[in-house]
């Protein structure tokens, strides 16, 4: 390390090449840090629990196309028959599911006609909803069979009782415990009161990128709409068989409807995060290519330098440098250039992140990314310089006496 002073001073005499390489390293660090931050951000979003028993659930849609199709009769008989199937844990009609990307949302307030509503996503379910979804009650009670009503597409009325996720309830009543939230009144559509009957632990809204994804309200209603959806929960290992059986059961009724989109929940998860996965793949490719290009840039630059300084290397060897001294010299030189690049890189990484936060509402970068990226790039730099440095170390000291 006692060569560092002269090496640094020599680099200052040849600023342009070193500066360009340092800037390349800074740019690489800036992009890598923010790309990995985005990758990790997407990974943590993908790792979030939907709140459901996804491995053992599926849903399907049906659409009545004949005038004779009676939605109310269909839903009542269908659900009774599905629940009786061997291996079915429970089933409910539901308007949407987590991860589906489509559904309802409304604003709830704690006082009528208030401007500051808490956005919540709505799932219309019956008294089997909790068990089918696989969510737990934290406080209060589930809906009873008698309070489940039917909702037509043009209905404006809201039932008296609702269940809320703990996250949604906390937004509305930040100072109350779940037990204290039971019986509290909330208002929908500005002034229609509803009572919180129960608090469930966790359930996601249908939209994975929604900032209020954990705010969910369960409403005790069945829809009498043209297109409806059943959610079925099965015993472990029975799902795939039951997906076929339930479809066949409904088709066998020949009552004037189409069955479509029989989808397992984990398949739906894959679909929901397909864009995330694609983005992650693209970012990984960018990170890899950029790191490789930087490494190749270092290899090229150092190889060029070694060729340019063959006689100098020979002279140093003649003056007593060991092979190790020559290797150390190039590695130290690279360390100084990489170090300068990384210092610029830290500043530009933070600057880019501030811009991304302001422009795309991404979360702030974790401070730990910076030292990790620095260590990785130092290692990449040192590995890249290893080959040319070894080549330099193997040059003959006799080069010192050659005239060219």
């Amino acid at each position, binding site marked *: 390390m*006692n*060569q560092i*002073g*002269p090496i640094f*001073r*020599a680099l200052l*005499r*040849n600023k342009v090449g070193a500066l360009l390489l340092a800037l390349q390293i800074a740019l690489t660090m800036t992009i890598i840090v923010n790309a990995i931050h985005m990758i990790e951000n997407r990974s943590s979003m993908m790792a979030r629990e939907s709140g459901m028993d996804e491995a053992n659930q599926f849903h399907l849609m049906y659409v009545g196309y004949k005038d004779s199709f009676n939605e109310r009769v269909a839903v009542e008989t269908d659900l009774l028959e599905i629940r009786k199937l061997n291996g079915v844990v429970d089933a409910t009609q539901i308007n949407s599911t987590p991860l589906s990307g489509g559904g309802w949302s409304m604003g709830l307030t704690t006082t009528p006609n208030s401007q500051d509503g808490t956005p919540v996503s709505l799932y219309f379910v019956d008294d089997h909803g909790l068990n089918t979804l696989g969510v737990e009650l934290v406080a209060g009670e589930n809906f009873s069979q008698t309070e489940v009503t039917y909702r037509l597409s043009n209905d404006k009325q809201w039932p008296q009782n609702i269940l809320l996720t703990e996250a949604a309830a906390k937004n509305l009543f930040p100072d109350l415990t779940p037990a204290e939230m039971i019986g509290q009144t909330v208002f929908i559509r500005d002034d229609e009161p509803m009572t919180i009957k129960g608090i469930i632990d966790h359930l996601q809204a249908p939209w994975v990128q929604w900032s209020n994804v954990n705010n969910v309200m369960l409403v005790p209603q069945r829809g009498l709409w043209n297109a409806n959806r059943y959610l079925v929960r099965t015993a472990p290992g029975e799902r795939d068989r039951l997906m076929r059986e339930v479809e066949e059961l409904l088709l066998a009724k020949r009552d004037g409807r189409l069955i479509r989109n029989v989808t397992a929940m984990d398949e739906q998860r894959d679909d929901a995060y397909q864009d995330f996965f694609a983005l992650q793949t693209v970012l990984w490719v960018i990170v890899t290519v950029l790191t490789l290009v930087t490494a190749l840039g270092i290899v090229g630059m150092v190889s060029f330098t070694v060729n340019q300084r063959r*006689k*100098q290397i*020979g*002279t*140093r*060897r*003649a*003056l*007593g*440098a*060991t*092979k*190790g*001294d020559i290797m150390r010299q190039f590695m130290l030189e690279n360390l100084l250039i990489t170090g300068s690049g990384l210092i610029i890189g830290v500043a530009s990484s933070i600057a880019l992140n501030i811009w991304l936060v302001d422009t795309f509402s991404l979360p702030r970068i974790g401070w730990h990314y910076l030292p990790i990226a620095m260590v990785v790039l130092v290692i990449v730099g040192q590995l890249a310089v290893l080959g040319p440095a070894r080549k330099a170390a193997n040059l*003959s*000291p*006799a080069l*010192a*006496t050659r*005239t060219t």
Partner: protein
Amino acid sequence: MLKMTSVRKTFRTDTIETHALRDFDLQVEEGDFVAVTGPSGSGKTTFLNVAGLLETFDDGDYQLDGKSVQGMNDRQLAQLRNEKIGFIFQSFNLLPDLNLFDNVDVPLRYRGFNSAERKQRIEQALETVGLANRMGHYPAQLSGGQQQRVAIARALAGSPRFLLADEPTGNLDSNMASGVLDLLSEINAQGTTIIMVTHDPSLAQRAQRNIFVRDGQVTEVQTGTNIQELLQQTAQV
């Protein structure tokens, strides 16, 4: 202090074998100022490279300070070069991006001296060659003669047992060459052994001993022999 016995060095390509040194015998004593002359391709530079441990040899024995160098590994050879030999090259071989202080400092850092000792040695060496007031200058800011003086300071700073000079005035005009040669004579007078390879007979005349190399072999010539004549005779043969 330097003894070569039957040293052989052959360069081989796929088609040609060149015997650069053939049974090369030479003994140099402490305090000698030896000039090595000879026609182009006679083996002078190969001798210098072998003597300076810049190149290995194929056969024979080479003892430096009573120790055979054969079989030494790269690290040991580097250490010997650093501690015992000072090099002066025809084209000075100063490192262009280092100032004079750092240039002279190069071998001292490899030696592992502490900074105080290095500073003292550098200042003293540059003082000896008359460039102590230009330590912060870069080689490009100096004349050829001054650059060679810096190279001599660099060679001297580590207090080597002997200096190996490869055409030390080859790139200098006669005025500067004379100055450099005066300096080498002065250094030799102070007890440093010098081996100087040169093709210039007038420079060779200033050495105590003259060695003539022809076809990779040594002929010791008497002081006062007309080396120019020898070179011409060799060329005619």
